[in-house]
Structure formats: C-alpha cells, structure tokens
C-alpha cells in the first residue's frame, strides 16, 4: 500500500516522501523530523493509525500537523472516531489518484 501511495504522490507532484512501516516507526520519524503532512493507514501493527493520530495530536510540536487517514475501515464509527481524534481528511480504499490529490489540496488550503 505504501508503494501505491508513494507512486500516486509522485504522479501528482509530491516527490519528497518518506515511508514508515507502522505507527511506532512513523512516530519516531515525526518526533525527529519536521514533516508537512502524515498520510497513514489505520490497520497497522504495532500502533494503529488512530493511535498514531492521537499521539501526534497529543504532542505540542505536532498537534497541528496535517494528518490524512487512508483506510479500508469505512464504518461510520471509524470515520467519527478519526474525526474526533483530529484527522484532517479521511480517504476510503479503494481510492483514485484524483481523490488523493483533492484531499491533499483541501487540507493544504
């Protein structure tokens, strides 16, 4: 999935992308490097996307960081939980390059 997202990001013009295998690895990177945006899956081990989102929002230095959830979790309870946790946008799999581009553009405004 990371490879697909990276490929799509490259196609729509975002070349400076870094990957993390799971929430724990992502959090380590976020703590040590300044990023403009996080695009995260929900279903990861260890540390799910929603747990990562809560951690990001809990840290003063990253509390305002843009965070897009890209996931197959499409139940209302998931979407509401992500919104309440502070997700900037929510993309349901399967998605198109246009959807990814539109959601990124909407949060960068």
């Amino acid at each position, binding site marked *: 999935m990371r*490879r*697909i997202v990276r*490929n799509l990001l490259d*196609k729509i013009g975002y070349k400076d992308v870094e990957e993390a295998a799971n929430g724990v690895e992502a959090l380590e990177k976020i703590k040590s490097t300044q990023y403009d945006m996080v695009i995260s899956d*929900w*279903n990861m081990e260890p540390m*799910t996307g*929603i*747990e990562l989102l809560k951690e990001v929002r809990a840290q003063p230095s990253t509390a305002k960081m843009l965070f897009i959830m890209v996931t*197959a*979790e*499409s*139940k*209302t*309870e*998931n*979407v*509401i*939980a992500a*919104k309440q946790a502070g*997700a900037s*946008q*929510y*993309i*349901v*799999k399967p*998605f198109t390059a246009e*959807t990814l581009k539109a959601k990124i553009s909407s949060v960068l405004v």
Partner: protein
Amino acid sequence: MSATDRTVLLQAGLARIAGYSAALVAEADRLISLPPAEQDGSTTVTAVLGEMRAMAQLLVESRAEIVAMAPPSQNGAALQEAGDALDVVVAETERAAFEIMNQAERAQAAAIRLQDARPSEIAEGLAEVNEATTAIVLACIFQDITGQRIRKVMSTLREIEGRIGSLVALMGISAEEASSTAQPVAETLLNGPSSEEQGGLGQGAVDDLFS
C-alpha cells in the same frame, strides 16, 4: 493454539467425559442394586442415585450425539486445509501485487522516456509499454485461482457454522445467551473492510461526515 491442537484437546476431553460418565453410571447402578439393608433405608438416597445415573447417562448420550455429528479428525483436517488455503491466497495475492506494481512502474518509466524519445526509439519504448501491460494482465490471473480457494474455504466455514449451530441447539443454549457472551468491539475499531450491506460508507458519505 492451532486448529489441529484444539481438535486433539477436544477429542481427549470428550473421551475423559465419556470415561467419567460411564463410571458414574456404573457406580449409580451398583448403589441402586445394593440390598436395602446396606442402604440407609431412605427413599431420598435412592432418588438422588437415580438422578445421578440419569445425568451421567445424559452425558454419555450427548457425547455420542456430538461424535455422530462429524468425526473430529475430519473437522481438524478441514480446518487445517482451510487455513493452508488462506495462507496460499495471501502469498499469491502479495506476489501478484508486487508483479503488477513492478510492471506498472516499468510502463510508467517507459512512457516518461517516450515523451523525449527520438523517432528511432519510439518503437522500442512502445514495445516495452506493451510488454508491461501484458504482464499486468497475466498477473491478474491470480484472482481466478484465489477466488476458487476462497470459495472452498467459505464452504468449509459454512459447514462448521452449521455444526456449531447444531451443537449449541443440542446443549440448549439460547440465542440471547450466546450473544451475551460475544466479544465487544475492540477499542482500536479494527473492523476490516466493510461492504455497503455491512455498513461501510463510500467516499461521498465519509466527506459528508467530515464536512
């Protein structure tokens, strides 16, 4: 614990229950058949022994009914086979996804090169795009094979579901009692992919919730 290990434990447990039950029945029969002088003369004792014997006999009969529903060794083998089939599905899907990604990136790279290609390089570039797209089509064959494997697993699961239903009915467990012990949704909300019928939302509905 694997499905096979659980089946072995279940078999051993049922065999132990059968042994204890048969021993209880024999002991109850022996006590009931004692001459009145060796009993305490109470009709209550005889009644209790009768109840004990009936309960033990019920366990023996229940075990026989459970065993008759399906030989445990067959269920274990079917579950093992279903698990193996799903492992293969995961591996085949992953292999196909990598192949499709590799070939798609190869086609993308060729297409980018074609933008600045000299006329003499165009045929070669188009041939590479064509090769890559053909490889993608071939990689999609995995869907047919994995579909067949998944249908077989679903058939096994439906059969097991039916047998569990029979077992629950045999034990006199009501639907309310069964549902009251259901696991609560995890805090991490890992529901997995959901179809529209299962309450899954499309991107439009998600956007409405986010607006």
